């Protein structure tokens, strides 16, 4: 192999020399001025593929890959391959299509082999395409996006990719920062594709270092207690400073009466019960009264409203509701807010982040 290389090398040196002077001048010209990649206008067809891919990518980031997801990705790959057969495509478009195809393969679980090959195809056709840089980054061939920004024709797409990368690594605040920065400059189609990811990152921005439980869209009573134990010291007096299992914790807190409605002692939250806003308010109210050692005020609202015959200030909450005190107390103390300024919407579910945010307001 080495011999063959030497032979080829000898053979080529004469040509190298023959064109040396000319090339020297041309390369001399080139090296005096480094050429930037120009922003290319892509065909509507390619833009549509890009949108479809980003839409599928956005769904994957949110974990919504069930059902016909895989088929949609495969369909997109076929469409792109069909388009690549068009001989009149310019190089930038070919590069973009290869990059999109590579990204689609990654979405469909390709370990990287096919994606790497497509990345090579894309780069050899045209350097600096942001989608091909993104493909290279996701396939592990490019480690630093920042360095590639200066050679990309559209660095805002790479800023968006930085944001998505932050999202995947759980750095939600930085994710929103970068995605919003990119959205300011990118077209509305990217907002359509990644808006939900951005909103999810926004809702999780205060849960960067929190556990998986906090990131759940809905939580059970047991999980609510675990979040409270992990993220505050409010339960310390009940657990005596120990970290208890969910079951043991539930038992302790139930015994302490923190899961019992102020207006009806027979209403106690079950460990596996899904937490609604009203039930969340019940626990938060009991916890705050206990923490502030003002348990005598647990029923202050129902006593005042019932005693004076005043109607409820919250449209969807009756004075007779067992959680009337808890809901009014939580709203007045800003642990929870009215959803629309009029109704509390107590039956709506509470996410881990919403509960965690509310918990932090008890001081």
């Amino acid at each position, binding site marked *: 192999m080495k011999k063959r290389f030497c032979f*080829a090398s000898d053979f*080529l*040196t*004469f*040509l*190298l*020399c*023959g*064109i*040396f*002077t*000319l*090339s*020297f*001048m*041309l*390369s*001399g*010209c*080139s*090296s*005096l*001025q*480094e*050429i*930037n*990649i*120009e922003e*290319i206008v892509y065909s509507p067809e390619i833009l549509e593929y890009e949108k479809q891919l980003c839409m599928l990518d956005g769904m994957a980031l949110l974990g919504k890959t069930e059902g016909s997801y895989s088929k949609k990705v495969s369909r997109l790959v076929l469409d792109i391959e069909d388009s690549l057969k068009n001989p009149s495509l310019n*190089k*930038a478009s070919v590069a973009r299509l290869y990059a999109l195809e590579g990204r689609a393969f990654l979405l469909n679980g390709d370990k990287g082999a096919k994606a790497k090959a497509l990345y090579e195809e894309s780069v050899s056709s045209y350097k600096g395409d942001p989608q091909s840089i993104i493909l290279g980054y996701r396939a592990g061939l490019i480690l630093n996006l920042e360095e590639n920004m200066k050679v990309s024709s559209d660095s805002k797409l790479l800023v968006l990719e930085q944001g998505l990368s932050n999202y995947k690594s759980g750095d939600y*605040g*930085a994710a*929103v*920062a*970068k995605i*919003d*920065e990119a*959205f*300011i400059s990118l077209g*509305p189609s990217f*907002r359509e594709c990644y*808006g939900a990811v*951005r909103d999810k990152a*926004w809702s999780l*921005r205060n849960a960067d270092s929190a556990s998986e439980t906090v990131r759940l869209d809905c939580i059970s009573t047991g999980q609510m207690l675990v979040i409270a134990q992990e993220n505050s010291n409010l339960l310390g007096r009940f657990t005596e400073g120990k970290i208890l299992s969910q079951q043991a914790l539930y038992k302790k807190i139930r015994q302490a009466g923190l899961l019992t409605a102020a207006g009806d002692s027979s209403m106690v939250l079950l460990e596996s019960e899904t937490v609604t806003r009203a039930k969340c308010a019940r626990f938060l109210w009991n916890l705050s009264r206990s923490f*502030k050692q003002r348990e005598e005020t647990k029923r202050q609202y129902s006593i005042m409203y019932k005693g004076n015959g005043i109607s409820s*200030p919250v449209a969807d909450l009756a004075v007779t509701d067992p959680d009337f005190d808890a809901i*009014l107390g939580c*709203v*007045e*103390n*800003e642990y929870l*807010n*009215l*959803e*629309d*300024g*009029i109704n509390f919407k107590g039956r709506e579910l509470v996410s881990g982040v919403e509960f965690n945010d509310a918990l932090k307001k008890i*001081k």
Partner: protein
Amino acid sequence: MKKVLKFAAVFFLLIIFVIAGFLTFCAMDKKSVMKSLTGGYSVYIHTDSAFEAINPLLDLQAAEVLLASPDADSIRGLFNTIKASPLRSSKIVKLLGSRKVDLALYQENGLEDKAFTAIVDLSFLSFLTRFAALYPESLYANTGLVKESSALNSSGDFITYFKYSDGKNTIFIKPVKNLVIISSRYSMMISSCYGDNGQNYTEAQKKILSSSIGENVRIVADARKLAQSVTDSNPVLNQLASLLPENELSVVYFSITDEDISIKCQIPFVTEADNGAFLGTIMNKNSGTPELVSRLGDTVQYYTLINAGTLSELKEAFFPLVPKEKEVDKLWESADGYCKTAFSMSLDDLLFSWTGTEFAVLGVENQNDPVFALQIKDEAQRQKIFEKITESMFVKNNDSLIVGGVRIPQLMLPSFLNWILSALNVNIPSPYFIVSNGYIYFSESAECLSSIYSASDAGKYLVKNDTWKQISSGQKNTSAVSLYYNLDRSVPFFLRGKGSVSKILALYSMGRFDGRIRNNILEFQLHSVAVKSGSLRLIPGFPVSLEGSVVPENFCVDSRKKPENLFWVEKKKIIKKMDLKSLEIISLENNDSVSICAAPEKLSGGGVLWSVSDHGEVNLYDSQLNVCPGFPVITGGVPSALGGAWSSGYIVTLESGQIAFISGKGELFVTDEADQYLIKSRPAVYGSSMRLYAKGFSGSILSIENGQLMDSENPMEVQGIGLGSPVVFKNGLKTYTAFITQAGLLHLWSDGKMVKNFPVKLNGVFFTNVSASSKYIYALSSEGVLYRTGLNGGVLGVKIPDVTGKNAYLYADDGGVYVNPDGNMIYGFKENMELMRGFPLTGWGCPVFADINGDKIPDCISLTLDKKIIAWSLR
């Protein structure tokens, strides 16, 4: 009486004659700068008027770029102080500053020790300094100047001079006749005062130094050092620079404004036998006018053109620069042999027999592939050569394309040839080519060639383009190398560096750089222009990365009128301060979590920043974060909300329902008059008026005036529950209070009474409360609708697309309103609700405004969600 008057008149006349005579003497009795200036400097700067040279530079964006570097930390504050100083418009300062100044900078080889000598020619104003040694010390004691004397020689001669020291650096100052000599070295000062350094200069150097400068500033520098400093990113050019003779002076003229920059550098050279003789054929030839430029169409967006000689001459000139181990001469010989075998012609015939002296790379708009252009000296010979090589086994002549009515043939080079070319950064695997107007153009893109042909065929020439004309004004037509660049498309070699010069040049997006040779002088000329863009500019030095999380509520400047410091709290416990002039940051770590609030104006003890800890400990800090006398103050309770500062004190509402008032001297007054109320939000402040929102389903607004709770039994009643703080503002003599409920009921009170037409119902849900200018109240709904409500109740709404406002921030003043909806973006709206130019910007929370760059226009400073401080110039 008449005699007295006559005597007085004669006396005064005599005095006037004496003064006039003295002034004339001062103007005539001169010492020349050249005699005083010690040789051996690396850079010499001269200006005919220090004021005219320096004053315009203070306002440049380029100055901000220079000051953003860490090395400039120490002078940034002083620079911005001078920049913002009213003295700049003083006629007296202008008169005093309009003096000739010569500055020489010295850097000894191998030593980090740098030195300087500055010589100010005071001319007739030297009457002020001629007897400076006799002035009483009390006259200059406060300036830090010290008068000293030392022995000059053994015969007992003494010299009296002034010395200034700041602990690190010492400067020696000595007035001599019309001059004031300032030097960082005693020996240099002595040499400047008593030496005759003029005889050390060659005639050529004297000519350069004494010639009229025309521009504001002339810089003379060592030619070789200067050339090496700008070519260090290009090895070949750097080698060429090293061929320049040592100790030869080059002259740099430059002028700079925010709109354009012009630099001209002349370097004399000699090609001697032992130093660059091989360059003789190129360097001894005066540069000609390249013809290609006048033939290029206006679709060309950048070019690099070399017009230094024929290929044969260039080969002779540049082969010696190739490292010897590459044995390039031997390679050439064998290549020539192979060429004869393969193409039946010599390498000289193949390359030199038809090519002219111009070679270029250029780019065309809307096309990405570069175009290579070569001048044809002999078209018949070119055709003959091309026929021969396409008949060979190595190069195929493919079918032609017809693009835009132009027939464009294509060459198919074999893959090994492409490999060699790409190794030399020439990527043309299957180039198309056209021959037009005596030039052959190659490109991978047939469209590029068609575009070049069509534009020049239609008479749309680059030289008629307005921008090209602008950057070519003052440029000569001759050139050996010429670069026309547009930073959107190409980056010239001198902009690739990371130094301040490259950063400054990058502010000017289009330019032309020419290098030419004339009568043994190498001349470089650059003229660049800044193409205006609509976006706002990030201030150099920003963004500043933070070490921990910060919340927008703990981000403030020390005064609304003329802020000097920016404060914030990192990781809940660390208070940090940035000096807005020097950008220097200091910090103070607390044991507890704290929240901060700037005092509206500096308090008598120097206090500018209030803080309250989670446990109710209140502190007042000066601008260096030193605790003021009388502090800390313990309130005895836990704060229920963030504290608020009024003109002479601080207020903290406590969980117990009490309200703690703390004066600037540390006096504490706690009242429980309002303990039936639940205060969850920061007090609203305007001057000495404060408003507190007592939260509840039947909430109310409490008034505090001058630190006194007013009529807490009869507060302003709120119809519904709301979030956040009210706003208090003045219009004329009236003080208004506004508040919006979560359900959208906007209340407006004046002197405690509801204003006519209020409350006004706004559509939507409001998680953020209102902000106000003197004329309008602004509110943002959760759906992202921004409302502007007049004091008469008239409402105007604007929907901000794709945003929500559940955790938003709103800040209004008479200039407009700034909205940070949920996310990392800030919108700015004018009072008429039009979006301000350049917005939205990245940012989080309420922005603060302060003049960072000294241009007297407040800059917009804000946090970002990814833990940075960002600052935008609103100029």
